């Protein structure tokens, strides 16, 4: 889509920011705009904001907790409120829960160890702008790489987000002890998605799976039709 303006935020310690930018460029054909955490404002007219994986502030204190208080996050929260699509992957998901854009929290993996492998996910909701490119119930394969990916929320919250179709992806295998195997969660309006698996690592055949591509393609397409 021509003129697509996707941005990737870099926090100190982000390490998937380049990979996210490459994926956005690969799928959209447009250069990704790089945004520094210390900036107070986002560039104008963004169509998409990505919070990448990594170890912002070393995961010291609590994963995502310090990045969630970066100057740029006020602007991201405001943009999300205006309906701009926001994707948080891995550490980006942790930043989204810490900043209150998404419910729940991400705790240490149940197995205590870091886990990196390609896992099977089920697409639970294919009605969102991020997931419209998948078939409902489809099983896709996307890599995970995290130490704190164990999704937790109280039962009432879990029941509510399940009822509202806000569980975007569920692990089809045991990965990290997440409540109800939840791998990705949408906000109420459906324009903010947080997920532990890394769709930017599953874009081309060389990655071993291209199943992440449809996520970016869906988001970009939704802008065309909007």
């Amino acid at each position: 889509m021509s003129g697509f303006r996707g941005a990737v935020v870099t926090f100190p310690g982000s390490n998937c920011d380049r990979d996210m930018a490459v994926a956005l460029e690969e799928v959209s054909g447009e250069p990704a705009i790089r945004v520094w955490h210390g900036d107070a404002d986002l560039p104008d007219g963004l169509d998409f904001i990505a919070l990448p994986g990594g170890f912002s502030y070393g995961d010291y204190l609590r994963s995502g907790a310090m990045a969630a208080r970066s100057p740029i996050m006020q602007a991201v929260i405001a943009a999300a409120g205006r309906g701009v699509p926001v994707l948080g992957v891995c550490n980006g998901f942790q930043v989204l829960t810490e900043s209150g854009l998404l419910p729940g929290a991400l705790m240490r993996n149940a197995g205590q160890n870091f886990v990196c492998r390609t896992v099977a996910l089920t697409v639970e909701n294919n009605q969102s702008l991020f997931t419209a490119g998948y078939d409902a119930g489809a099983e896709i394969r996307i890599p995970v790489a995290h130490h704190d990916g164990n999704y937790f929320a109280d039962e009432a919250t879990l029941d509510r987000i399940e009822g509202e179709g806000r569980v975007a992806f569920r692990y089809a295998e045991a990965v990290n002890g997440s409540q109800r195997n939840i791998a990705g969660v949408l906000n109420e309006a459906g324009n903010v998605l947080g997920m532990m698996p890394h769709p930017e690592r599953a874009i081309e055949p060389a990655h071993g799976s291209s199943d992440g591509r449809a996520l970016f393609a869906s988001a970009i397409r939704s802008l065309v039709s909007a």
Partner: protein
Amino acid sequence: MSGITPDVVEAHGLSPEEYERVLHALGREPNLVELGIFSVMWSEHCSYKSSRFHLKKLPTEAPWVICGPGENAGVIDIGDGQAAIFKMESHNHPSYIEPYQGAATGVGGILRDVFTMGARPVANMNALRFGRPDHPKMKHLVQGVVAGIGGYGNCVGVPTVGGETNFHRAYDGNILVNAMTVGVADADKIFYSAATGVGNPIVYVGSKTGRDGIHGATMASADFGEDSEEKRPTVQVGDPFTEKLLIEACLELMATDAIVAIQDMGAAGLTSSSVEMATNGKAGIRLDMNKVPCREEGMTPYEMMLSESQERMLMVLKPGKEAMAEAIFRKWELDFAVIGEVTDTRHMVLEFNGEVVCDIPLGPLAADAPEYERPYLSKDEYKAWAKVPALSGVPEKTDIRADLLKLMASPDLASRRWIWEQYDSQVGADTLQLSGGDAAVVRVHGTQKALAISTDCTPRYCYADPYEGGKQAIAEAYRNLCAVGATPLAVTNCLNFANPQRPEIMAQFVGCLQGMGDACRALDFPIVSGNVSLYNESKATGGGSAILPTPAIGGVGILTDYSKMATIALKEGAQKILLIGANPKVGPEIGQSKWLEVCCGKEAGPPPKVDLALEKRNGELVRQLIDKGLVTAVHDVSDGGILVAVTEMALAGGMGAQLQTIAFEDYVDSEKARHAWSLFAENQGRYLVTEPIDSHIVEKLANDAGVGCCFIGWTGGDAIRIGPDEETTVAEISLAELREASESFFRDWMEV
């Protein structure tokens, strides 16, 4: 005045004879700061005093070598104006004392060696040796080391893509943690360490200096005594978050033209970095110790110079660039301080509170450095000392089914999934092949090229015959690179040995290096960087044991088109499995094999011999087969022989195989019918490949090239079936059973 008593000298790890050299170099008695500097610069770790004489004999040159040993890391040309920069380094002693931080800072240190030269690190590898799994400390050590490697590498965002892990009782009291980093840079933007330009500012960046790791280099140069637990305070603490910021800040500054020279502060910290920069630049250096950023109040110049606090770098900037450089480091929230200047005195002068606290002539510090040509046993004397039992009473036929299951569940051959799932192997989104294959493969970002990397060494071969073991370590790295389709380019090494003051240990060192040198010359595979770790022996665990000689090799090769890369996984049924490099003139070499150890309980006999001319020819053929797309899977034959290699290919592909022993016993066993020997022997220079049923080109090309090649069986089914021919089955082991055996070792050890 200085109070340098013999006790103080000894506490600094210097012998009386070495102290005489200090007095000669200075022309006077040193003060404590100066003594500390001499002690770390002349430690085994920094001076290579026992190894230098032999290291000089290794081949280090080739047309594609941009920078060989002597800088922070080796640099090779990978085409299109790009260079690969890489090195391997040990962190053995710290990892035994405090496994998490020891291993983590090992990764941090080797990363800095690579990005200090201008490269973005693109891959981490490691070579680990542990003691017996049932040793009371071993589970804790393995958990700590693996978590430490992951904790550091995952956070800095450099994928850990492979490595090797062995277990042997010889490492009970002295584990080995060798870490390797590979980076990519523009060939015309390589940064070196020579400080030049009188008056140029010397700048300190990164973390503040604390009291951690003081005397780490000296510790790493002595045997472990009974008190190794008490040495914990000498282990440094790593901060991978700061390292990540340091990488980004350094690379950002390197994109400008501000840097004259740069050096990381590794072992012996500020001392070795400043001495090396000034020495390499044939210059002098003046530092104001009051300006060194310190973590604690009241630190003395002695402590600042010997601290091994991590994540620090020293740079010489062009004049007038300080403000621009400082802005970059402040943006990344890092310390930045101008702490001195380059001089023309050829002296290292340190000032503190307005007084000169150290004034060392750099020429004599280097020129008077001790170098030892330590005595070593002859080959025959070594043989008599090593007492490797002769091969005898080895069964020729056994229960192959039981033996294969036992081998696949054995510590050295079992699946390493538990380890490598703790490493982020995918960050960068350029990882094309992981641990578990022959070599790891990482794409050069934004190109069709890929780097292949393999770490290899078979210590039990090196013990039984140091010369053949040294050859084999190089040959196996070469073979693993060829097996993915890469052209082998160059080698880094990490030479882990016990106490060099023992002639039998020195015989191991000399023998291994001779073997390595011969192999590198024959295979056009020069050594461009490396590290030596001696004194790996311990009295602390009641073992009193030396490690096996362990010259760990890190090989790097290039694929010009990654789409042609080969993998070990069987892809389709009804394909031919061919053995490349079969040599009917050599019977099965069963000595020192894994099968002999695991299934027969013997560590006996000579190790297999490497024929370097055949090794080269076989490797060239395999690369040609891969480049032309003629083979569908490739795997080298190493530990466990043909049968384990086939099993690994089958498990990787989820597809079985049927081996027909009549078809290949002529090629692998002159006496035939010694089925166990044929299947488990570890003859060198061999590969398994698969070829589609209707293609008949591989055997022809092998014949043309003068390379042995024979059919050994078919792919297909969901089991490994072995029989003399298609109709008869001697042993059948389902993939499910084999997978369970392979997964059981780490699972049962770690997760119960």
